[in-house]
C-alpha cells in the first residue's frame, strides 16, 4: 500500500526543483506587473470577453493576461484557459499559473486549471508534482484528491483513481467529502451496489447531483439492479435517493417501480416536488395512471386549482373517471359558479367526459347544455362526441344519434357519426365518414383496415364487435370479432378479424385463446398479410410460456415461408433470443 502511495504522490520529485527554477525565471520575465499588485480595473477583462465572443482569440489573450492582475483574476484565468485552448497554446498557461498559485496558494480554481492544463499537455510528471504541492500547501483539504481523482476518471484510469481515494482516506481520515468521486469511480469499476451507496451519501448533501447519479447508475446490468434498488430504498427514507431511483426505474423501462420508490414519501414540500416532477415525466410518456397517482399524492401537500385540474385530466386519460369526478365534484344546477367562462374552459369538459365514460350521458348532456354558451366551437364538437359515445356505452344508440344531430348537419357528417354507423353495422356510411377523421388513433386504423377489406355494405355482427369494444367489454369484443370472422369465412377480412380478436385476447393475458387464433390464421389464412405477424406473435407467446422449441419452430417457419416479409429481420432476432445465441435470453 505504502509503495503504491509513494508511487502516486512522490514520483517526479526531481521535477520539483525544475518547477521552482521555472517559477523563479517566470517572475523575472516581463509578465503583467499587475500580477503583483491587484487592481480593481476590469476594463481589460470585459474587452477580452468581447473579443473572445467574436472569435478573436489572439487579440483576447493579452487582455485576459492583463486582467489576471485585477479583481477578476479567476474569471480571467478561465478565459485565458479557453482562448489558449482554441489557439493550441495551452503550454503558455503554465507560467502565469505558477505565479498566480504562488501569490494565492489557497485558490482552488488556479489549482484545478493547472491540473487540467498539465493533463491536456500530457505532462504526467509535472501533474504529479503539482498534486503533491497542492496537498502540502493545503493539508486536510480534500480538493486536491477530488480534482486528481476526477481527472483520472475522465481518462478511464479507474485503478489509479481508486488509489487516490485510498490515499485521501489515509491522509484525511475520512472520504465523506469525496462521495461524488467515489460514486463515479465505483460505477466506472462496475461495482454498482457500492456506487449506489456512495451516490446515496453524495445526494444527501448535494441533492442537485440527482441527474448525475441517474446517468452513472443507468448502465447497471439487470442482474445487479435489485441491489441498487435496495440501497436507494433503505431506511431512513431519503427523498433525493428515492428521486434518483425513480429516475433510474424510468430509464430501465419500469416506470411503475419508479412510482413505488416515491409513493411512500412523507407529505412535505420536497416530496411534493418529487411527485410533481415524476408526474410531468409520466405525462410526457403518456403513462396516465402513474401521472394520476403522482399528482393526487402532490395534492396531499398543497391543493391548487392547476394541480387539481392536471390530476383530473390524468385520471380521465387513465380511464378512471370516478377519480376525476372525486377531484372535480360537480356543483348542483342551482349553485353559483364564480367564473362560468373559466369553468367552461377548464373543469366542465373534464367533468362531462368523466360522466360520459361512467355511463351517465344524461348528466353529461345536462352539464354541457348548462355551459354551452361559453364553449368554443372546438370544445363543443369534442363534448358532443363524448356525450354521444356515453349514450353508446349505455346502449342507447337512438339517443347517441340524437345527440350528434343536436350539433347540426356537421354532427351527422362527422367521424363520430361514422363510428355510430359502424356500431350499427352500416359499413357503407362508416367507410365514408371514418375517412374524414382528422385523428389518427390505433382504433381508427383498425376500423378502417377492416371495413376496407369487407365488400358488403352491412355487417351487423361486426358492428356488435366494435360496439362491445366501445363499451370496454374486451372479452365480449374478442368473441364477437371471432364470430364476425366465421361469418366472413369466404371474405378478405377473416384474417384481420381473427388478428384483432387475438390482440384483444393477448391484452387480456389470455394467451391460450390468443395462440389458438394465431394458429388459425397461420394454418388457414397463410397467404394473408396477417399471417407473418400472427406467427411472430404466436412465437413470442410461446417464448413467454417457456416453450423455446415451439417458438423456434414458428420463427423458422415464418422466415422460410415469408422471406420477403418486413418482419423477417425481427423474426431472426427473436430466433437468436429463443436459441440463446445473443445476450438477453439468460
Amino acid at each position, binding site marked *: *500500500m505504502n*509503495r*503504491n502511495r509513494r*508511487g502516486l504522490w512522490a514520483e517526479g520529485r526531481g521535477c520539483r526543483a525544475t518547477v521552482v527554477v521555472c517559477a523563479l525565471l517566470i517572475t523575472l520575465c516581463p509578465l503583467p506587473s499587475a500580477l503583483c499588485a491587484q487592481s480593481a480595473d476590469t476594463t481589460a477583462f470585459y474587452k477580452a470577453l468581447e473579443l473572445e465572443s467574436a472569435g478573436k482569440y489572439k487579440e483576447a489573450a493579452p487582455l485576459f493576461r492583463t486582467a489576471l492582475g485585477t479583481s477578476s483574476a479567476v474569471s480571467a484565468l478561465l478565459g485565458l484557459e479557453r482562448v489558449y485552448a482554441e489557439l493550441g497554446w495551452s503550454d503558455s498557461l503554465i507560467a502565469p499559473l505558477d505565479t498566480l498559485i504562488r501569490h494565492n496558494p489557497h485558490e482552488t480554481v488556479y489549482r484545478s486549471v493547472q491540473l487540467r492544463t498539465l493533463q491536456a499537455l500530457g505532462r*504526467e510528471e509535472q501533474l504529479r508534482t503539482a498534486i503533491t504541492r497542492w496537498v502540502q500547501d493545503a493539508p486536510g483539504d480534500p480538493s486536491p484528491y477530488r480534482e486528481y481523482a476526477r481527472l*483520472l476518471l475522465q*481518462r*478511464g*484510469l*479507474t*485503478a*489509479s483513481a*481508486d488509489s487516490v481515494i485510498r490515499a485521501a482516506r489515509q491522509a484525511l481520515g475520512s472520504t465523506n467529502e469525496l462521495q461524488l468521486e467515489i460514486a463515479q469511480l465505483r460505477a*466506472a*469499476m*462496475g*461495482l*454498482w451496489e*457500492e456506487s449506489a451507496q456512495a451516490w446515496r451519501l453524495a445526494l444527501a448533501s448535494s441533492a442537485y447531483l440527482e441527474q448525475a447519479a441517474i446517468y452513472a447508475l443507468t*448502465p447497471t*446490468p439487470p442482474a*445487479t439492479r435489485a441491489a441498487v434498488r435496495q440501497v436507494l430504498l433503505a431506511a431512513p427514507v431519503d427523498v433525493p435517493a428515492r428521486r434518483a431511483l425513480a429516475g433510474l426505474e424510468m430509464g430501465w423501462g419500469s416506470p411503475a417501480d419508479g412510482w413505488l420508490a416515491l409513493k411512500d414519501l412523507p407529505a412535505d414540500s420536497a416530496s411534493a416536488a418529487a411527485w410533481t416532477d415524476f408526474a410531468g415525466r409520466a405525462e410526457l410518456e403518456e403513462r396516465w395512471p402513474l401521472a394520476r397517482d403522482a399528482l393526487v399524492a402532490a395534492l396531499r401537500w398543497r391543493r391548487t386549482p392547476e394541480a387539481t385540474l392536471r390530476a383530473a385530466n390524468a385520471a380521465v386519460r387513465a380511464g378512471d373517471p370516478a377519480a376525476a369526478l372525486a377531484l372535480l365534484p360537480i356543483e348542483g344546477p342551482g349553485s353559483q359558479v364564480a367564473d362560468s367562462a373559466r369553468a367552461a374552459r377548464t373543469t366542465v369538459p373534464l367533468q362531462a367526459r368523466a360522466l360520459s365514460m361512467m355511463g351517465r350521458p344524461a348528466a353529461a348532456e345536462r352539464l354541457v347544455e348548462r355551459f354551452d354558451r361559453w364553449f368554443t366551437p372546438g370544445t363543443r364538437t369534442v363534448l358532443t362526441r363524448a356525450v354521444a359515445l356515453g349514450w353508446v356505452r349505455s346502449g342507447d344508440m337512438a339517443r347517441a344519434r340524437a345527440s350528434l344531430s343536436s350539433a347540426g348537419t356537421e354532427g351527422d357528417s362527422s367521424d363520430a357519426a361514422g363510428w355510430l354507423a359502424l356500431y350499427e353495422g352500416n359499413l357503407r356510411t362508416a367507410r365514408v365518414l371514418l375517412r374524414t377523421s382528422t385523428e389518427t388513433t390505433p382504433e381508427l386504423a383498425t376500423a378502417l383496415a377492416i371495413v376496407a377489406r369487407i365488400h358488403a355494405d352491412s355487417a351487423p355482427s361486426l358492428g356488435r364487435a366494435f360496439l362491445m369494444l366501445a363499451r370496454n367489454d374486451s372479452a365480449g369484443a374478442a368473441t364477437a370479432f371471432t364470430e364476425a370472422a366465421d361469418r366472413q369465412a369466404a371474405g378478405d377480412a377473416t384474417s384481420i378479424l381473427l388478428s384483432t380478436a387475438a390482440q384483444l385476447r393477448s391484452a387480456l393475458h389470455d394467451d391460450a385463446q390468443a395462440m389458438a387464433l394465431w394458429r388459425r390464421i397461420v394454418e388457414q389464412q397463410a397467404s394473408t398479410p396477417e399471417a407473418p405477424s400472427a406467427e411472430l406473435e404466436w412465437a413470442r407467446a410461446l417464448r413467454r410460456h417457456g416453450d423455446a422449441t415451439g417458438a423456434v419452430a414458428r420463427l*423458422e417457419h415464418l*422466415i*422460410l415461408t415469408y*422471406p420477403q416479409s418486413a418482419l*423477417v*429481420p425481427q423474426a*431472426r*432476432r427473436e*430466433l*437468436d433470443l429463443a*436459441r*440463446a*445465441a*445473443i*445476450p*438477453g435470453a*439468460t
Partner: protein
Amino acid sequence: MIKLSSLARVAALWLCLALPASAQRLLVPMDDSQDDHLKAYGVTYNALKEGLTGEWLLNYRGGAFLLPDTPEMRKRAALAGVTFEPLDDGQLGAIRAEIANSNMDAVPLEKAPKIAVYSPPEALPWDDAVTLALKYAGIDYTRIYDDEVERGDLTKYEWLHLHHEDFTGQLNKFYLTYREAPWFIELMQQNLTAAKRLGFASVPALKKDVAEKIRQFVERGGFLFAMCGATETLELAMAGHDVDLASAYIDGTPMDDDADRKMDWKRAFAFRDAHLEHSPFVNSMSDIDGHQVNVPGRRQPLGTFTLFNFSAKFDPVPSMLVQDHRSVVNDFYGVTTSFTRTVLKPGDVILAEEPGAPWVKYIHGDYGKGTWTYYGGHDPEDPQHAIGNAPTDLSLHKNSPGYRLILNNVLFPAAKKKPLKT
C-alpha cells in the same frame, strides 16, 4: 382463349430458357454484399460438421465460401440471414479462372474441428468474445476448465480457445483494485479450492501446470487461439515454469527478484526476453503488452490496425487467418491489447499491425506439430471494455470485421493441408 393459352406457353418456355440450369454450388460471398458475415461461418462450419465439404475462396469476394447447393443448405442460410448466390457450372468455371489468375486460391474445407473453450464453468457466453461469436454463429463448443485439463481431456479436442485466464495465477492482479468486491472474493476462493482439490499448493502452481498441458496440446498438433490477457500470461507461465512469478497476496511468497533472468523463453510460443512487472501494485504483467491499459502514465491510445495481405497460393494459412472485408480495423483494449515488436520471436508471423507503432495486434506461428494464434484485446466491438459493461449483442454487429478474424481461426483447422510452398 386460344391466343392467351399460346402466349402463356411461350412465356413459360422463355422463362425456362432464361433460368440457369440446376445450380450445383452455393457461393456465400463475404464482401459487402453479405448480410451477416458472422453467421456465414456458422453455416459453413455446420455443413462440414454434417459431413459435407466446401471450399474457402481466399481473397475472392472477401474470402467467400463455396458450399454444396442442397435444400437443407439453402434453408440454413435463409434462416440465418446469410446471403448466398446459386452458381451453375459456367459461373463456377469463370470464378475458378479468376482465382487461378489472381492472388487468390480455393482451399478445400473438409472437417469441422472439435472445439473447446477454456473458461470457468460459471462464466456466461457473453464474458468472452469468442464464445459470443460461437454462440451467435451457431457453432457448438465444449467448455473445459482446470479439472478437465488436469484429467487429460485436451486430447479430445482439436481447437482450444483461451481468453481471460491469468496463467501466472495472480487473477489478473485485480486484487489491487477489486479485493473488496464480492465477485473477486468469490473468484479467489474458487481458485484456491480448485488448486487444493487438484493437489496443488497454490493457484499459481495449478495454473502453471495447466499452461504446461496446453503447451503439450499444441506440441502434439492442436490449434490454439488466445485473446486478451491469456496470450501474455500463458507465455509467462510457460517460460516461467520453474520461477516464482506470483506476488505474495496469492501464494504467500513474493515474486522472485531474479525472475527476469530465470525465464526460459525456449518453452514459450511467441515471445522472448520480455521484462516482468515486479510490483504487485502495478496492473501489468510484463512489457509484452504495448498498450498497458491499466497503468497510468504507460497507457497508450487506441488506433487502428492493418491486416497483412499474404499470397493466397503460397501462404494459405496466414491468408485464411486474415480473410476480411476490411483491411483496416479499429483497435480495442483488453488486459493485453497488443504485442510489443521487440519481444516477438523471429519465426512469428505478423498478421496485423498498427503501422508505425511499436506493437502488433495479431500474430501466428507453428509449435511442434500444432499452431498458435494470438489476437490482442478483449472484444472487437467494445473498444474500452470495462468490468460491468453490458455484453455485446452481435446481432447489432453482424458484419464486424474484428469478429471475423476470430471466426477465421475457428474455420482454418478445417482446411485440407497442402504442402507448403514457402
